[in-house]
């Protein structure tokens, strides 16, 4: 029974961390219509930033500032936001496809930096020994994980509440108007470039937060934690849950992560261990099918967009 419980805790920690990233993506795609093909890259930037800020000091590697976890998370958000600003300034004025291409490119480039800039990232070995903030307060792995789940819940709750509030603010209303009709919004006095950039940077910062939470939980960071498949998983979570709906985003995260881990479990029982790569591929095919099928047959996701007026105006 404790086995099931501890697995459930572990499952929820990861699912909710991914859920935070999905919330960030939802701000970009769901509420602003920005296509970010480099989610994993922005999470990686956050993960590494957090690791450098909170990790132990080491020879031959930068960082090791041993700062508090919260500072690490703030740094994760700032670093991912800054990366987004660089890409956004170049592409947000142009055809929307170019943002997709550029974000895809930055994710690849970030991975290259992670692999090659050993002084900063530890190269292929990554950065290890990142202190888990829950470990200092709890004894034993289960208690630690439960406590960390609390941290993740708090972070996800904050992101959810904060985003919920901001998308219903005049800021969010303007964002939505720009998504619907940029020309009309501009001729009603709104500056599309500024707002898009803000939403893109904020969404990416939230992805960075997810990256920081992930690193704090598993205790190390390496280039192999933020593979391109992660971007697909997060996209699928958003599409399954229903974009432009934050409840849908979290629901999609838990649901798709459940499908992913269950399928991984089944595949590992069925496929011989020497065909590991193939079993991973089978899982990826499942995700791909799910994404395409949702787009074709239920494009609004499980929970579609909600109609909401400014939060100060609800009856």
């Amino acid at each position: 029974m404790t086995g099931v419980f501890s697995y459930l805790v572990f499952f929820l920690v990861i699912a909710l961390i991914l859920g935070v990233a999905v919330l960030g993506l939802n701000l970009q795609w769901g509420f602003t219509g920005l296509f970010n093909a480099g989610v994993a890259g922005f999470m990686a930037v956050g993960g590494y930033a957090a690791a450098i800020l909170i990790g132990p000091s080491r020879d031959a590697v930068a960082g090791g500032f041993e700062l508090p976890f919260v500072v690490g998370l703030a740094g994760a958000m700032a670093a991912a936001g800054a990366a987004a600003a660089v890409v956004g300034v170049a592409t947000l004025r142009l055809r929307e496809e170019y943002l997709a291409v550029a974000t895809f490119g930055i994710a690849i480039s970030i991975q290259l930096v992670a692999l090659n800039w050993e002084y900063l990232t530890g190269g292929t070995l990554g950065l290890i020994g990142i202190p888990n903030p829950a470990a200092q307060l709890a004894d034993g792995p289960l208690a630690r994980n439960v406590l960390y789940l609390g941290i993740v819940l708090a972070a996800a709750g904050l992101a959810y509440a904060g985003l919920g509030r901001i998308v219903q603010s005049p800021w969010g209303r303007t964002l939505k108007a720009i998504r619907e009709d940029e020309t009309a919004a501009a001729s009603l006095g709104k500056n599309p470039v500024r707002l898009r950039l803000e939403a893109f940077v904020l969404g990416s910062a939230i992805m960075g937060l997810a990256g920081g939470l992930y690193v704090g939980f598993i205790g190390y960071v390496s280039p192999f934690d933020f593979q391109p498949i992660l971007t697909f998983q997060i996209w699928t979570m958003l599409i399954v849950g229903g974009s432009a709906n934050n409840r849908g985003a979290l629901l999609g995260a838990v649901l798709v992560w459940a499908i992913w881990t269950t399928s991984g479990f089944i595949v590992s029982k069925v496929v011989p261990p020497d065909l590991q790569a193939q079993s991973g591929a089978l899982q990826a095919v499942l995700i791909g099918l799910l994404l395409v099928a949702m787009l074709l047959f239920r494009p609004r996701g499980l929970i579609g967009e909600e109609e909401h007026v400014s939060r100060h105006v609800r009856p």
Partner: protein
Amino acid sequence: MSEPLLAVEGLTKRFGSFRAVDAAGFTVEAGALDALIGPNGAGKTTLFNTVSGLERPDEGHVRLAGRRIDGLPAHEVFAAGMARTFQIPRPFPEMTVLENVMLVPSGQSGERFWNNWLAPRTVRREEVRNRERAREIIAFCGLEAVMGDLARTLSGGQLKLLELARALIAEPRIILLDEPAAGVNPALMETLVEKIVALNVQGHAFLVIEHNMDLVMSLCRRIMVMAHGRLIYSGSAEGARRDPAVLDAYLGDVPE
């Protein structure tokens, strides 16, 4: 008082070698209700687009209450006090009528991201005021019954009224209406005309592109006629009907 509300001077907009607007010049006085008419392809909508900042002029000046606004992006022209509507209405379809209108006022502090966190009370106060104002204007435009409906569910005529409401809440110095009556059924058209006249009586200035000539001739005090990108007539409706150049613009020249 010597400064006209809107002054357009030598305005030219080229697309390739084609001069869609060709050295157009005119003024609109405060409190005016002027019409801009002309045959298809005369450059009326391009003139609107160029004046309202959606297109950059190639030559010429536009002054609004004395201030140069040519070359400014659309959102800054709007902030300077000029609102416009579109020939084919451009609502935000997935937003309610109320949201469509509340969106508009410039300089809402809640439009700045951080103000929503740092000054939530100011934002709330403004929103409440904004909502009251939006409700009044929506009611004035006769859209009270659909205030909470998504804009995509509105009829063509209701969308025209929504566009008018969105323009009104900004309290612009001048409103450019691009074919307010196109695709509107006669009953709603009466309402629309009533609203425009009532607003004009209150002092709002309008410049109207309209194809329905009976409407233009009865609604507007001054008529400007545009042909081949140029302004060829400015004066009364009666005069326009008798002006040979205007007739030529509509019916073409007799070939030599």
